[in-house]
């Protein structure tokens, strides 16, 4: 009985992690942005938008395959690139 409870608890935790992962998935967020911008495209011709820089996604526009977290990860990797000074070596 106790063993079954542990297994069920693990399964629930895994399910929660899966759900959290889905919520934080950047691709999903990009998809949301695309959906929103598709809606906003219909208001593009209104006089208020004339002349303003339009960086919203059009229906033909691709979503970037690079995410901000990719660039942040690269930043951390670059920070770790350290050379060593051998002039302090005893001799």
């Amino acid at each position, binding site marked *: 009985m106790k063993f079954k409870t542990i297994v069920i608890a693990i399964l629930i935790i895994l399910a929660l992690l899966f759900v959290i992962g889905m919520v934080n998935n950047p691709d999903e967020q990009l998809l949301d942005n695309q959906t929103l911008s598709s809606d906003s495209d219909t208001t593009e011709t209104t006089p208020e938008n004339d002349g303003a820089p339009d*960086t919203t*996604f059009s229906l033909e526009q*691709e979503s*970037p395959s690079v995410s901000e977290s990719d*660039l942040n990860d690269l*930043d951390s990797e670059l920070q770790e690139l350290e050379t060593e000074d051998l002039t302090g070596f*005893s*001799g």
Partner: protein
Amino acid sequence: MINKKIVLVFSLMLLVIFQVVAISALSTGQAKQDWQDAKLATAEKRTNHQEAKEKWMVNKSDENVQAHIDTGKDLLNSALDEAEAWLIWKQQEVESDESVSEELSDQIQIDINKNLAKIQELRTKVESVTTIYGVEDGLNFVVIGMVGDYLRLLTDVARDSGLIWVEKSNQYIDKIENYEASLRETAETIKNNQEIVDFLDTAKQNMHEARENINKAEISYQQVVEGGTPLIKFNEGNQYIQTAKANMLLANSNLKSALRLML
């Protein structure tokens, strides 16, 4: 019952994996600590030798002569311990770094083993010291001979270390170039994309400068050889790598600015 066995096997596998990762990290960290400890020990032995030398200069008694020789031998052995600890640390670092190419990794292992053997030869020379001024067994004679040998011990592996940094820098710059190309492709599908393209162009310029500095670093490191000016060339290579790092961080920052405008 079967489920319990599966859970047990799974837990054991996880434990083994964590153990291997922990031991690997520990041994590299420990090897670095050993090198730093060896450096401190050398500094201490140098002070002891200096004190013994000063006493010997004032009074050349048998006791002071012997102390001069003994502390000198201790100092030489300690310097060799330091070089050995550094080589061992480098060996473990390369073994645990999967991003180092097999070719470079093999070359480093050869150089390290060659120099570890050389250290044993030098220890024999130090052991043979019995006088201060003797031709074959004199402390001063051995010290003069060891100056060049000591530098040679570090030269090969210093060059190899530099080439590892070049290899890693090239991997990073390749990655940044891929990101830039990908973002540019997306930017071309956006209307009024001038500001985004400007950021990408600046990033491209940063990457070009980084590539140039990495190439210059490689040339400098290749010149870290016996008979030349290895330490000067090594430091020169280091400076190019540090500049390339700054170029790459700047390029990455420009890519981030471009990406933010796309989202």
